């Protein structure tokens, strides 16, 4: 009898793996609607309860605000620059509403991001002819990311200051993060502090640990999610 319970649990587990796509769709729909009416926020702790998850690779991340935040642009450019939060806010802002897709599977639908197009900062800096890529560094001191110059110049790549129509909170990578709409969310580096124009792409933090460098949603990392942009 005990053996039957043991084997039954194993069988249910295997069945769950196979039936997961169906179960997951149903649960996401149910929990998504429940989360809208849930004042406690407890549904957010359930698997597939919707919403963002917090991932940080550093031990601790300093807090930066309008007085001490700086974004530097350097490398193969004619005019290296350093922007304060106010400088960035004074530039023309672009707002986009698209799905966010994490490479670990979770997806947050229709999330507004707002900020300065990366291409605008690159143009202002005057990218030199031999440049081919952009490297991003973060004030958590650990995380790095990079894009080819062509990817970085896309209209759906932002230096984001706002998310969900609020100023970016620290937990979401505030005050400033990268937002690469067409790629898996690990490309959208949080706590952005440096933009360096380089000749070649340097793989970023997770890419050194096996993730794809060109992280198009639905066309990389062995996944087939619906494209986000």
């Amino acid at each position, binding site marked *: 009898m005990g053996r039957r319970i043991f084997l039954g649990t194993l069988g249910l587990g295997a069945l769950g793996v196979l039936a997961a796509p169906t179960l997951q769709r149903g649960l996401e729909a149910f929990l998504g609607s429940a989360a809208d009416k849930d004042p406690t926020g407890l549904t957010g702790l359930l698997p597939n309860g919707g919403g963002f998850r917090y991932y940080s690779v550093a*031990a601790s991340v300093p807090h930066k605000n309008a007085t001490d935040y700086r974004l530097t642009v350097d490398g193969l450019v004619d005019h290296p620059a350093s922007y304060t939060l106010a400088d960035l806010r004074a530039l023309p802002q672009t707002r986009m509403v698209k799905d966010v897709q994490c490479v670990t599977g979770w997806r947050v639908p229709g999330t507004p991001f707002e900020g300065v197009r990366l291409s605008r900062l690159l143009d202002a800096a005057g990218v030199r002819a031999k440049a081919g890529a952009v490297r991003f560094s973060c004030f958590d001191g650990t995380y790095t990311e990079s894009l080819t110059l062509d990817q970085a110049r896309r209209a759906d790549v932002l230096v984001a200051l706002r998310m969900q129509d609020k100023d970016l909170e620290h937990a979401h990578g505030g005050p400033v993060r990268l937002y690469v709409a067409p790629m898996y969310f690990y490309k959208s580096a949080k706590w952005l502090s440096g933009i360096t124009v380089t000749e070649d792409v340097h793989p970023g933090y997770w890419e050194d*640990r096996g993730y794809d460098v060109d992280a198009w949603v639905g066309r990389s990392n062995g996944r087939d999610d619906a494209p986000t942009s």
Partner: protein
Amino acid sequence: MPLRADPAVAADRRHRFTRAERWTHRATAVLMGVCVVTASFLYVPEFAELVGRRELVVRVHEWAGLALPVPVLAGLASRAFRADLGRLNRFGAHDRIWLRAALVRDRRRASRPADKFNAGQKIFAAWIAGAVLVMLGTGLLMWFTHLAPLVWRTGATFVHDWLALTVGVVLAGHIGMALGDPEARRGMRTGSVSPEWAEREHPLWRP
């Protein structure tokens, strides 16, 4: 290890678990604790913000999970442990009575007949053993992503997440019941229990 009572057991105590069994339980509990704590660091946003160091936490979680079945496998070398596994596997007529009473929250002693393990403990043992192996299997699918096609990995994540939550709740129940029964804890800590406790909680247990 022989089935006879520990020589160290005092005359007024009843032998319940051998040293090997106690260490099997202890090692399993420590590894399970590491799995649960690291899982909460990976999973609960507030804890994740507190701890960070995602790469390290993932490694610790993976290795603790991989090691989790090892103490039980090593415990199989103990004859007493194998005998107790046999007892956990066997359900008798009295277990049905115990379960029915548990379902209607009947706490009277007469309606809860049990041998060395009660029916609830038997079900818990079988279920947690199965659940740990499901967690191990789905965990390996998430760890070695090239092992299986993507739908399997997504399915494994789904099962791993929900089963983790279930295991957490059931473990809390297991620990809660132990906290409420000091003599049961003493049995697992020292290996012996008082005859009164044995007579009350496990009236059909004849060593």
